[in-house]
């Protein structure tokens, strides 16, 4: 009886060569899919949170704010005269007064960190820790004596360095 023949060196080399060509292609495709999914996830996350922040700030200011001050004690009124404007780089010195005479504001906690909505009794972080926020600024403008002041806000939402979106909004003080 003849002994069963094994593979020759050439056959093994060819097989390994074919596998060696196929595996990198396979992993490249897998990597491309994963990268694409990460990008989409990042975009969805920053859009969701950015939209949420804009909606929440818009509603809060529109429904509650009546006056704007540069300090928590309401000594320096801003945007109360016609054609006056005022801006604050990180929101630390931009306070809004509500109908009950309490203050609230929106500010950046740390550069490139998160945004918060504060009042005397509450502290609410507006974004979760998956995203960071920077380039925040808040300002106000009053055109004439018979129109309410308008608050404008800018900020940028980032998901690491994968994706970022700019947000800009203006809201009129309805209860003025």
């Amino acid at each position, binding site marked *: 009886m003849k002994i*069963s*023949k094994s593979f020759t060196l050439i056959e093994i080399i060819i097989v390994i060569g074919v596998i060696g060509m196929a595996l990198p292609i396979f992993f490249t495709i897998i990597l491309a899919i994963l990268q694409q999914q990460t990008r*989409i996830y990042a*975009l969805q996350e920053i859009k969701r949170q950015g939209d949420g922040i804009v909606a929440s700030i818009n509603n809060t200011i529109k429904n509650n704010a009546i006056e704007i001050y540069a300090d928590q004690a309401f000594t320096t009124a801003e945007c109360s005269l016609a054609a006056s404007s005022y801006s604050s780089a990180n929101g630390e010195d931009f306070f809004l007064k509500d109908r009950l005479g309490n203050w609230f504001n929106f500010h950046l906690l740390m550069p490139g960190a998160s945004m918060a909505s504060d009042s005397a009794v509450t502290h609410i972080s507006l974004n979760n820790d998956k995203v960071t926020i920077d380039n925040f600024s808040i300002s106000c403008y009053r055109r004439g004596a018979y129109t309410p002041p308008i608050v*404008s806000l800018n900020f940028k939402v980032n998901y690491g360095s994968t994706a970022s*979106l700019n947000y*800009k*909004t203006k809201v009129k003080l309805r209860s003025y």
Partner: protein
Amino acid sequence: MKASKGFSLIEVLVFISILSIFFVVAIAVVTASLRNMKVDEHKILAVRSAEELLEWVTSEKETDWSTFTGYVGTYCLNDNLGVDWLTTFTYTKNKSGSCTSGEFDGIGSTSPLIYKRQLSLTGIGSSPYNRIDANVVVSWQEPNKTYSISLDKTFSVWE
């Protein structure tokens, strides 16, 4: 007893052709899904830039209604949006009139440069209007197709 025989040529050919059909189908599915994911990514950015424009139009309306009614018309806004109507048109790719068929400049010159964005403001009734309908269309080019999304909003002086 005869030594165990290997596969015949026909068997090997059939096996290889079945395997190659499988791989071709698999690669076609993967590339199609990658392309769809790319379209999804671009759609998120397109919706965002359309919403950004509507938000900006809203802010112009909030600032002053009577000035706002003077802006009725069609605009191609492929660049950044300035703090107000006038500064917005100091950007090079923002202009009055419709976007031309080829104008896929990208929004605000940020990558990917495949978008164009058009705004139409239509006054309802007769001037001075107390209602204006806004329509934003963002179109973008994929390698084999042009996609577009459209958002509408109505503004009225009584709001």
